[in-house]
C-alpha cells in the first residue's frame, strides 16, 4: 500500500471537512430531492427549443434542403459549421478523462463525469447535421457498408466524409462505454441509498449488479486505463478526420497540412469553454463548490489559454503560408475573403481572431483565471469565437470559388437553419438537465480515492512529512 502523501503546495481538490460518507451524501442528495424551480424553468425552455428544432427539421425533411439558404457555391453553410462546432465541443470530456488520466492531472476527478456527459450530448447534436444535410435522410443507411442488392454498391472508403461516419460513430460508442463503465459504481451507490421502490428498481438495472468486489475493481481499473489509452488517440483522430473533410480538398484556405493538430487544439479549446459554462452553473445550483473548486476552474482556464494560443499560432501560420506559398488563390482567400475587414465576410474572420486569440490571453493572469464571473463570460466568448472559426473556414473559402461567374450573393441562413441549430441546443440542454437531475454529476468513487491525499482536511497531516529530510523520508517509506 502506498503512502498517502501529496505536497502541501498543491491546492486541495476537495474543500471542506469531508469523509467518505459526506462525499456520498453531497453528490447523491441532488438526485434524491425534488429539483428546484430553476431546474424546471431551464428544462422547459430546453424542451421548447428542442420542439422548435424538431419542427425546423420536419420542414427540411418534408420540403427538402431548399428550406435552407444554401446556394450554388455555399453548399456547406450553417449545417456543417454547426456540425464541426458541436463535434469540437464534444472533445473536452474524453480529453479530460483520458489524456488527463494518463498525464495524472488529479483535478480531472472533479469534472470528468459532467464533461464526459457533455461530450456525449454534444456528439449527439453534431450527428444530426450531416444526417439531415443528406437531404433524403431516409436513405441514410446507404452509408453502411453491407453486401446489398444494388450491385453491390459500396460506400467510398477513400472519401473523408465516409471516414467521418466511422470516426463519429466510433467516438460516440467509445465515449458512451467509457462514461457508462465509470458510472456503474456510482449508480450502485445511489441504488444502495435508495428509499423508493422505483429508484431501487431503476438504479438496480442501471448498476448492472455492481457490488464493489476487489476483483471487479481490479478489472474496472484495467478497463478504464485501456479505454483511456484508446480514447486518447481516438479523440485526436476524430477532429483530425473532421479536418480532413476540408484539408484533402484543393480549395484555397482548406488545403493546409496543419489542419489536423490545429483542429484538435481548437476542439479542446471550445470543449473546455463549454465545460466551464456548464460547470460554473452546476456547481452553484447543486452546491458542489467543494468538489468543483476555484482550483479546478483555474486549471481549465490554463488549458483554455494554452489551446487558444496554439490555435492562434496556427492561424498566423496559415496566414504566413498564404504569403510564403506565393499562391494567388491562397492569398485571395486569406488576405481578401478573410483578412480584409471590409470584404463581405471580413467581420467573421476578425470576430474569430478577437474571440479566440486575443481574449483568452487574459488568462495569463492568475487573478483573472480565478474569477468565476469572468470565466463564465469568457467561456461564452470562446465558444462564439469557435463558431466563427468554422464559419470562416467554410463560408469564406467557398462563397467565391475559382470561377467568378459562379460567385454568389451573400449567404445568410434561413429561419429553419437557425431553428435547426437552436433545436440542437434544446437537445443538448434537455439531456444535460436530465443528467444533472438523475445521474451522479461527480465521479463519487474517484473523489473518494483521492480524498485522503487531496482533501482540504487531510492536508494538515502532511506537515510532519513535509518537515522530514529527504533521506529520513526515504527510510520511512522503505518500511
Amino acid at each position, binding site marked *: 500500500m502506498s503512502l498517502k502523501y501529496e505536497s502541501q503546495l498543491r491546492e486541495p481538490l476537495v474543500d471542506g471537512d469531508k469523509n467518505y460518507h459526506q462525499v456520498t451524501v453531497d453528490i447523491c442528495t441532488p438526485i434524491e430531492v425534488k429539483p428546484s424551480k430553476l431546474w424546471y424553468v431551464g428544462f422547459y425552455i430546453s424542451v421548447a427549443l428542442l420542439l422548435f428544432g424538431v419542427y425546423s427539421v420536419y420542414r427540411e425533411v418534408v420540403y427538402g434542403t431548399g428550406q435552407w439558404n444554401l446556394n450554388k457555391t455555399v453548399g456547406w453553410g450553417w449545417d456543417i459549421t454547426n456540425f464541426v462546432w458541436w463535434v469540437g465541443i464534444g472533445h473536452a470530456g474524453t480529453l479530460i478523462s483520458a489524456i488527463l488520466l494518463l498525464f495524472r492531472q488529479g483535478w480531472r476527478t472533479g469534472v470528468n463525469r459532467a464533461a464526459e456527459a457533455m461530450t456525449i450530448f454534444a456528439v449527439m447534436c453534431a450527428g444530426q447535421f450531416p444526417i439531415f444535410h443528406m437531404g433524403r435522410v431516409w436513405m441514410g443507411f446507404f452509408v453502411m*457498408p453491407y453486401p446489398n442488392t444494388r450491385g453491390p454498391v459500396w460506400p467510398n472508403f*477513400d472519401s473523408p466524409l465516409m471516414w467521418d461516419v466511422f470516426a463519429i460513430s466510433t467516438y460516440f460508442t467509445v465515449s458512451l462505454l467509457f462514461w457508462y463503465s465509470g458510472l456503474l459504481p456510482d449508480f450502485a451507490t445511489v441504488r444502495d441509498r*435508495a428509499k423508493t421502490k422505483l429508484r431501487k428498481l431503476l438504479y*438496480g438495472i442501471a448498476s448492472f449488479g455492481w*457490488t464493489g468486489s476487489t476483483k471487479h475493481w481490479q*478489472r474496472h*481499473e484495467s478497463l478504464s486505463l485501456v*479505454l483511456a489509452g*484508446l480514447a486518447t488517440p481516438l479523440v485526436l483522430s476524430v477532429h483530425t478526420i473532421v479536418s480532413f473533410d476540408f484539408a484533402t480538398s484543393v480549395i484555397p484556405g482548406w488545403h493546409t497540412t496543419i489542419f489536423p493538430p490545429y483542429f484538435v487544439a481548437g476542439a479542446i479549446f471550445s470543449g473546455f469553454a463549454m465545460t466551464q459554462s456548464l460547470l460554473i452553473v452546476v456547481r452553484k445550483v447543486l452546491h458542489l463548490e467543494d468538489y468543483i473548486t476555484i482550483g479546478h476552474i483555474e486549471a481549465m482556464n490554463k488549458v483554455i489559454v494554452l489551446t487558444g494560443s496554439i490555435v492562434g499560432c496556427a492561424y498566423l501560420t496559415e496566414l504566413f503560408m498564404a504569403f510564403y506559398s506565393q499562391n494567388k488563390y491562397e492569398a485571395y482567400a486569406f488576405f481578401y475573403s478573410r483578412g480584409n475587414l471590409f470584404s463581405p465576410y471580413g467581420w467573421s474572420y476578425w470576430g474569430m481572431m478577437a474571440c479566440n486569440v486575443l481574449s483568452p490571453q487574459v488568462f495569463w493572469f492568475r487573478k483573472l483565471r480565478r474569477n468565476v464571473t469572468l470565466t463564465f463570460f469568457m467561456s461564452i466568448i470562446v465558444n462564439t469565437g469557435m463558431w466563427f472559426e468554422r464559419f470562416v473556414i467554410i463560408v469564406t473559402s467557398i462563397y467565391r470559388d475559382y470561377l467568378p461567374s459562379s460567385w454568389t450573393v451573400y449567404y445568410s441562413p434561413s429561419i429553419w437553419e437557425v431553428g435547426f441549430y437552436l433545436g440542437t441546443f434544446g437537445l443538448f440542454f434537455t439531456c444535460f438537465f436530465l443528467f444533472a437531475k438523475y445521474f451522479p454529476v461527480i465521479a463519487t468513487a474517484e473523489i473518494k480515492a483521492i480524498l485522503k491525499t487531496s482533501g482540504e482536511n487531510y492536508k494538515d497531516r502532511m506537515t510532519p512529512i513535509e518537515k522530514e529530510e529527504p533521506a529520513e523520508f526515504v527510510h520511512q517509506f522503505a518500511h
Partner: protein
Amino acid sequence: MAKKKFVVGSFDNEDVLFPAVKKVRTAGYKIHDVYTPFPVHGLDHAIGIRETSLHTAGFIYGITGTATALGCMGWIFTTDWPVNIGGKPHFALPAFIPITFELTVLFSAVGMVITFCYLCQMMPFVKKHHFSLRATDDLFVMVIECTAKTNVDDLKAFLTNNGAIDVNVQEAEPGWWFGRYDKDQQLIRDTYVQPV
C-alpha cells in the same frame, strides 16, 4: 450453487483494513472477497488475486478490428467492385488508415467492455447478494467464507480485535441471479443440495 455461511467484518478505514487482511490471511482464513466503495490500491495483491489480463483481450480485439477493416476495404476495392476514385490506386493505403484506426479502437473498446461484463457477471437485471449496503458508501467490507473447521466466534472476535467496527454472520448465495433490486428475492435453486 448453494448458500454458504460467511463472516462479515466491516472497516471504516483502509489503513486499518490492510493489516487486518494480512493477519486474517496468515491466520489461515479464506477471504471470499473485500467490497470497497472505491478501488483501493494494492488491495488486490494483499488478498492474493492475480493480475487481470483484460488488456491482453483488448489487444486481440484491436488487431481483429485492424484486420477486418483492411481486409474488407481491400477486398471490396480491389476484387469485389474496383472503382477509379480520383486516380488513386485501388488499394489506397493512406486513405484506408483512418477507417482502419477507427475500427481497431471500436473493436477493442466494445470487446473489452463485453468481456469485462462477462467476467464480472454484470448485466442489467443481474442481482447479487450484498453483504453490506454501505460497501458502496463508506465501508470496507471483508467477507470470510466459513468452512467446517471455522470457529465463528473466534473469527468474529479476531476481526473485532483487528479493527472491524461491525461483525456479523450471514448465510448467502455467492453467485448471481436474475432479479430486481426493489424486491427481496432469493435464488429459487436454494433447495438444491450440492453433491459432496
